[in-house]
């Protein structure tokens, strides 16, 4: 469904992503793991067109999307949950969710989706009228995921959903991520928390200094001695 070929990202002279190639199949959850500075977020930003790639192509459902405007990405069906959550702090929770459906006009369906998201995250329903900026980090992450789902995407890009969160919150959020994936959502998950990411996904790619160094089934990556040594602290 998503095909990334030879993607190259550089900031000035610094090569952040060196010509990587990977793909995500329909209905699959794929994890892209790696240490800080490996180029994971740059990859995601390039796919979602927040930054320009130096080279390479990205195809989504057979269509080239590596040159389109960033606000068109969501029209193609790709929803990004940005790093550091990126909720609209001075809008309420409900307004944030409504903003996720900015491009949609089917009011009744939007209301249904909102209820669905409140079903995933009952905490958001309790706080529907609260300003997003006053939520805890975990709640903001829930909101960011909820907002992305409000666009009814074909694919979800998650940038470090566990970052800076209490373990209990991480558990809750990943529960929902797994449920959404089990319902058939194609997902690309970027994580530093390699164990969690590999446990939730079907396949994984390991990134190191801008290159993909390992790839395989998540279960086998979890048992790979190199992965265990480098990312699982063994």
């Amino acid at each position: 469904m998503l095909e990334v070929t030879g993607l190259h990202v550089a900031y000035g002279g610094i090569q952040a992503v060196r010509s990587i190639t990977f793909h995500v199949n329909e209905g699959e959850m794929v994890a892209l793991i790696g240490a800080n500075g490996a180029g994971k977020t740059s990859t995601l930003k390039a796919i979602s067109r927040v930054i320009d790639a130096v080279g390479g192509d990205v195809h989504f459902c057979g269509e080239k999307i590596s040159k389109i405007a960033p606000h068109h990405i969501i029209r193609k069906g790709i929803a990004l949950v940005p790093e550091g959550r990126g909720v609209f702090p001075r809008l309420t929770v409900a307004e944030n969710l409504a903003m996720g459906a900015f491009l949609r006009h089917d009011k009744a369906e939007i209301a249904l989706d909102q209820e669905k998201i409140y079903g995933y995250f009952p905490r958001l329903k309790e706080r529907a009228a609260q300003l997003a900026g006053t939520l805890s980090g975990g709640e903001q992450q829930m909101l960011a995921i909820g907002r992305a789902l409000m666009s009814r995407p074909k694919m979800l890009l998650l940038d470090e959903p566990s970052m800076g969160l209490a373990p209990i919150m991480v558990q809750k959020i990943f529960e929902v991520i797994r449920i959404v994936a089990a319902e058939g959502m194609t997902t690309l998950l970027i994580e530093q928390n390699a164990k969690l990411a590999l446990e939730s996904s079907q396949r994984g790619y390991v990134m190191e200094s801008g290159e993909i160094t390992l790839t395989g089934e998540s279960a086998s990556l979890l048992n790979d001695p190199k992965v265990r040594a480098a990312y699982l602290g063994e």
Partner: protein
Amino acid sequence: MKKWLNPRSAFGIALISVALVALPFVAAMGGQAWVRILDFAILYVFLALGLNIVVGFAGLLDLGYIAFYAVGAYAWALLASPHFGIHWPIWAILPIGAGLACIAGVLLGSPTLKLRGDYLAIVTLGFGEIVRIFMNNLNAPINVTNGPQGITLIDPVMIGGFKFSGNTTLFGLTLSGPQKYYFLLVALAILVIIINLRLQNSRIGRAWQAIREDEIAAKAVGINTRNIKLLAFAMGASFGGIAGGVFAAMQGFVSPESFSLMESIMILAMVVLGGMGHIPGVILGAVLLSVLPEALRYGVGPAQTALFGKQLVDPESLRMLVFGLALVLVMRFKPAGLWPSPERKRELAEKKA
């Protein structure tokens, strides 16, 4: 809109309308100077609401807003004065002025699209000054703006055969020029208030809010941030252009001096002090900040004489001192503005808690 229909709101609106109609006659008792002060207060309401679109709604800190006011004023001055011998009617000039200001807004806005906060403020400040300096120097080789001398003998507003300068007697009631302009300005101000209210609750208004809050997230939900930002600049600038046109006609004279950086800062102060993004707050800020310095001009001198028996401090400098102190106090005790929007108020309250 339903809120407007309940009896309490209807009563409030009726009360405000009566007050608005009575105001210029009450002010005239203190002399026509007071009516002119009122005129300027409404003109500033208009300007502040225009800037509120850019600063309050879209969150783009614009320190060169006065440039668009200048463009509108010069458009009127050049197209309705003996300077070029052109005397076009208001129906032609006002849209041209608004259109030119709109184009200026887009031109000045487009290079700044990637800038935010302080950087945007500095660039727009520069643009504002460039426009003023242009007006100041565009008297050679071809005399377009008549340079620092400015343009004089500008036509007043004429609608049909009705002239807005000089006295007119209507139904046995004598209206002075400033009083007539007052009603024109109030009509324009009501129009801009309605446009502001409609914008705030529209899709565009929500897109502006999103950009103000988080630009990357705004892109991620599918907002064309470039166009929406340019739209904010263009709309704000158009309002500035209209205000400028009326200003030129009302004064009968324009010169680059009227469009200094200080004016931009004053208008921004009106928006911030009143309550950024909150329409009633911005109106309050504009009225207070335009009337207060004038009221102090007339009040400070006599007050000193009454208190100390003589003039201790030059009233002109004292009034700015008092004015400055008032600004500092407001920012200290009302950091969200005098009349902030309920959300902003709640946000500050939640932060404290």
